[in-house]
């Protein structure tokens, strides 16, 4: 069940994040905070490698994950046993079937003309249903604000023909912004190149409807070299509304049952004494 209105989508924009060239500099995190004027994360030390951001949330719209793996990259050897770094800049996926958008009861979450998913802060009443509906744990609500917030794909910059701040700041082009068709073509070429160079484990995550039917494909997709779980990505995410039919049918059957019981209770007692 999709509630998007494709006729309002003029351009299909998104991100291709190539994790094999991410160097973990967090320039994307900083650029996002600066441009969008988001508050800090509280300066905590997590002891999770170099990741002191932890997760995406209401005021963290880019998050660089750091994985220290006891596994060598394909075709590579390391001096001190098998080891490799994985770094990935995570972001809202702007799903084709967006759980947050489909769950939003106020119409605060909309699909923009760039095919991105946008929360209108002046409409959101903070019901929290989008947060439970997101299969990636992206959207969040700050206790002191009360509204739901997430990456806007830099809607304001896009309207001014500028690329999102994170992609602009990325020094290695790990984050690439552009037209989705173009990004997919570039991503497939990159996977082919990596395969010929011996990194046989490279693959695309969520690049299209065929790759990830549960979400209908992601407008922000990734090139990964290990299972999605390693990067804290769900292996087979699904927009919850795709399963709603069974729940509604079950409710209808139970409701019929309640009516029958009520009628039985009333009718069986009708003939008796008052």
């Amino acid at each position, binding site marked *: 069940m999709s*509630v998007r209105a494709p006729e309002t989508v003029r351009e299909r924009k998104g991100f291709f994040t190539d994790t094999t060239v991410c160097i973990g500099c967090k320039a994307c995190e900083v650029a996002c905070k600066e*441009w*969008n*004027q*988001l*508050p800090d*994360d509280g300066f*905590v030390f997590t*002891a999770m490698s170099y990741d002191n951001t932890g*997760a995406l949330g*209401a*005021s963290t*719209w880019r998050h660089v994950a750091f994985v220290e793996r006891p596994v060598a990259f394909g075709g590579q050897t390391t001096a001190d046993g098998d080891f490799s770094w994985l770094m990935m800049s995570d972001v809202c996926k702007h799903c084709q079937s967006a759980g947050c958008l*489909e*769950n939003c009861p106020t119409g*605060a979450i909309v699909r923009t003309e760039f095919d991105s998913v946008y929360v209108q*802060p002046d*409409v959101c*009443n903070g*019901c929290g*249903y989008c*947060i*439970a509906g997101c299969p990636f*744990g992206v959207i969040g*609500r*700050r*206790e*002191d604000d009360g*509204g*739901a*917030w997430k990456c806007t794909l830099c809607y*304001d910059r896009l309207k001014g023909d500028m690329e999102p701040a994170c992609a602009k700041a990325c020094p290695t082009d790990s984050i690439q912004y552009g037209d989705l068709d173009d990004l997919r073509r570039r991503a497939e070429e990159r996977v082919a190149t990596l395969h010929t160079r011996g990194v046989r*484990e490279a*693959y*695309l995550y969520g690049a299209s409807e065929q790759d*990830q*039917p*549960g979400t209908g494909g992601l407008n922000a997709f990734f090139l990964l070299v290990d*299972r999605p*779980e*390693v990067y*804290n*990505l*769900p*292996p*087979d995410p699904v927009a*919850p*509304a795709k*399963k*709603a039919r069974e*729940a509604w049918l*079950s409710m209808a059957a*139970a409701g019929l*049952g*309640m009516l029958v019981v*009520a009628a*039985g*209770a*009333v009718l069986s*007692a009708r003939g008796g004494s008052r």
Partner: protein
Amino acid sequence: MSEAAMREPVEADPDRGTDRRNIDQARGVLEGEGSLQKVRGPEHSAREEVWTEEPTAGGDDPTYYDRPVLKEPVWISAVPAYFWVGGAAGAAATLGAVAQVADRRGFEGLVRRARWMAAVGAGVGGGLLVADLGKPSRFLNMLRVFRPSSPMSVGSWVLAAVAPTAGIAALTSGREGVPGGLGDAGGLAAGVLGVPLAGYTAVLLSNTAVPVWQATRRSLPALFMSSGMTTAAGLLGMLDLTEREERVVRRFAVAGRVADLVAAKAVEHDADLVRTVGKPLHEGLSGTLWKASEALTAASLVASLLPGRRSRLRRVVEGTLGAGGSLAMRFAVFHAGKASSRDPRATFHQQRSGHGGLEATGREPVSAPPAG
């Protein structure tokens, strides 16, 4: 700007200390996409737990430092309390409407009390839902659009329709003529809408990414519906009713309690298809509440089936056990969902065992490096 001006020390802004944006508002304009966000302190979600064993990638069952993959639902206890109140209101509205259609005069007392329970329940329920909102002053935005893909939108409209119709019906109970007719129409409308009011909350929960809620989407609506019957009948049974009305309420209650016990087993079965998904129903706060709920419901069923005089005290004990069991169940399901969302393995195992997108679309995703 001159060089001298650039070197000038920035005056401490009284708001900067609490704003956490580090923007000198004399020089920078707050108009970014996130600038409307009100910020007073650091986010509490930043707190971390100390590991006992170093969680690391690799192995057959990897996670990202055991961090949750989902966000924990932000709802407060007002939400499960609403599930309980709304369920009872819906079931009462339906029972009242059926009694009204069958014999309005004969069941006058029961019809009136059921209508009042529906009206008060819908009103209190609405208040509980507003209290849960992050921005309560914007509660009317719930009726800004109608979105069939969102069970919360559907439910908001149902609740908004039940409250006034049940209210009119309650206020005109026992009246004749035009007011009585209006009341009957209201009672009938509230009775029809009472069915979705009693059950939509289960659809709402299952329509989320939370593993244990999504996994129980076929059985949870039945449990919520029967639980509404148990509570409504338990509470109505405590009131002054004629002998005939008391029999109606008792039969409704017994059917509800039997259905509760059966549906609870079905929910457990659905959740336990994947061990990590069903875990919160057996462990922790949610597990304890779940067991307590089953025990209370079973006790109320036994109490209602025992022979002997049906004194008021007995009806109060019976009704309290049943309603208490139902309340414990709502909180058990609520906390099970919170626990489930904190466990990344619940999500990973559910989806790896074919209960993710594959189940809904029939097609496999690309979710691993190519073999070879």
